[in-house]
């Protein structure tokens, strides 16, 4: 029995979830699509963002979003630093793809264990006045816990989109993906440009992490559950396409929500990965691939 109410609510829930997925996946999309850096460790940086939000929430009582914003410069610095190591060890030698992947696997373990040692294995949550409350518009209920991540995710997507298309460095980042040599001729240093881009990609994790811990409890090893999902979003969106990432995130969010509502949630994750497999088989470059 499909009631209109349920359908409407499922769609809204899917969109909210999609906005959040976009926030988590943007960093992958950038690093992966624009820079060709297969940063499989991205979800663990999201975790790091979650724990930053947790610590600031417990110690100083900061709202997770505030922490997320405050920590973006820190994460940006971390990203730039990580890129330098990556560049010196792999890119300069032209041996990036496979070894880079293994490198990031290693980084993933190191960050995960550091979190384990620092915070222990227990689940952590944050407090905010709006968690557990909801807003009702007609028959549609919207949980703030999911609305806030969605709005922030959309804002982040918009900001990145504008940055990439309107600013000098943004255009340089897009250009570096296509032709680093030409960029050099234009007087921009590809190394610097890529460093900025990777820094930004990691910076998004600070915010995404804050959103993640707002939605539910977090523990260090949880990043692994997101590896598949964020890569699915990035690939489905067509890598490097910011708009595509958002659309893909919304599609997966809605697919999950609809399955969870109507045909048994057990299959919801499999359905979204099924969508991905299908999309890959039909259009390998993703929905909005170049």
């Amino acid at each position, binding site marked *: 029995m499909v009631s209109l109410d349920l359908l409407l609510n499922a769609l809204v829930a899917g969109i909210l979830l999609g906005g959040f997925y976009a926030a988590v996946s943007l960093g992958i999309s950038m690093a992966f699509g624009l820079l060709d850096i297969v940063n499989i460790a991205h979800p663990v940086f999201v975790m790091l963002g979650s724990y930053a939000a947790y610590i600031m929430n417990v110690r100083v009582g900061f709202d997770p979003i505030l922490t997320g914003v405050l920590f973006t410069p820190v994460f940006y610095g971390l990203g730039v630093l990580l890129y330098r190591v990556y560049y010196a060890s792999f890119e300069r030698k032209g041996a990036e793809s496979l070894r880079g992947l293994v490198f990031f696997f290693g980084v993933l373990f190191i960050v995960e264990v550091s979190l*384990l040692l620092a915070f222990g294995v*227990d689940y952590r949550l944050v407090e905010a006045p709006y968690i*557990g409350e*909801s807003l009702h518009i007609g028959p549609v*209920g919207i949980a703030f816990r999911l609305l806030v991540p969605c709005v922030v995710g959309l804002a982040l997507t918009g900001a990145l989109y504008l940055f990439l298309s309107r600013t000098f460095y943004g255009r340089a980042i897009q250009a570096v993906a296509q032709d680093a040599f030409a960029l050099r001729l234009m007087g921009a240093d590809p190394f610097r440009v890529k460093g900025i881009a990777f820094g930004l990609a990691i910076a998004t994790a600070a915010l995404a992490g804050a959103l993640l811990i707002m939605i539910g409890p977090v523990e260090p090893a949880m990043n692994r559950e997101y590896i598949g999902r964020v890569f699915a979003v990035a690939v489905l969106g067509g890598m490097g396409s910011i708009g595509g990432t958002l659309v893909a995130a919304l599609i997966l969010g809605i697919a*999950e929500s609809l399955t*969870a509502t109507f045909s*048994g*949630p057990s299959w919801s994750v*499999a359905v979204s990965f099924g969508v991905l497999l299908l999309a890959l088989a039909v259009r390998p470059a993703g929905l909005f691939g170049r």
Partner: protein
Amino acid sequence: MRGDNQPNSTLRSGRWRLRVIVVSVLVVAVALSGAWVPVALGADPIKIGFGMALTGGLAANGKAALIAMQLWAEDANKKGGLLGRKVELVYYDDQTKGATVPGIYTKLLDVDKVHFVVSGYGTNLIAPAMPIVMERKLAFPALFGLANNEKANYRGYFQIMPAGPRPALDWTATYLEVASRQTPKPQTIAIVGADAEYPHNALAGMRENIKKFGLKTVYDATYPPNTVDFTPIARAIKATNPDVVFVASYPPDSVGMVLAAHEVGLRPKMFGGGMVGLQFAAFLTKLGPKLNGIVNYDFWVPEPTLKFPGIEEFLKRYQVRAAKEGVDPLGHYLPPWAYAYLQVLGQAIEGTKSLDQQKITEYLHTKEHDTIVGKVKFGANGEWATSRVLQVQFQGIDSGDVAQFHKPGKRVVVWPETFKSGNVIYPYEKALK
């Protein structure tokens, strides 16, 4: 390889690199050799071996259990050990991976030569140890596995978790026992749980019980363990308008379900049942007043009806250690039982005055054991002879302050009658006010 090394620049870095490699190989070699050196023996202590989840999915509980077990060993040694010999715990991290368990237990028995083994935490980590234990006919006290002995019916298996002789059935029946005694009597039920070992077992038991209690199932579904958003599920349940909702969930999804239920306004007459995690301080304090009215299983709560000798001192000492280790600061859920399953083993060793596995197995079967979780009597299949699963209701919680959960009155025992410390507020909605 696309790029090629320039010979000039790599000469220096090549040597440096070589040095690093040599050093790392040496480090690995030293680490390797260390493993094969047998542990130096002291004054011949009684060794108890086990694997425990110290990393991985169950590590939060595994670490808490380990603290409790170490406290037991300290207590035993303070009293002069067992049979005049010191007690020593030998344990390894099973990483919450069943695949590590066979290796760990063979190592414990054959290399470390432990006298006894006890299980790690959780059904999935107990199961892979069973064949080894059975092959060698050992007594095997186990910690929180659901129906591990159902197929094998092994005589040496002793489960400290008080699920009862038919674990999945007895466990879930308690929730319906409470529901069926309320007026108006509930007619319909929705059941939901995670796609994992415990929830599936619990749901299977629940389906049987639903038939027995004559309820009508209006919703029955499972969700994947890494579900992010629970509002669609809560909404789908709400649409079926059930009188009772039974949730069998693991910690992160328990929180997700409670929040989602509030957000979509899911208000059945009774809500809860089998949610793991609503016993830990981290979740109690963060959910706070949103817990009010939920009826959920538990094994021990600080109610006056459950003040067994020794439990309070134990918890005080546990709480000091837990603060240091960063694990559950309350320790009401697993730690007392981790202490108790070594207590029964210790009592059996003392009682039989021997280390003989057969004698100890028979002793454990025939005697009743005094522990910090009360009197323990094992049935023929090694489960508790009678179920002591509690159903507690969260009542009068008005803040997220952790201190309130140390005191009675917030988690009121509503089942079984023997330990009852208050009445159910029914329907659920009434408790929310």
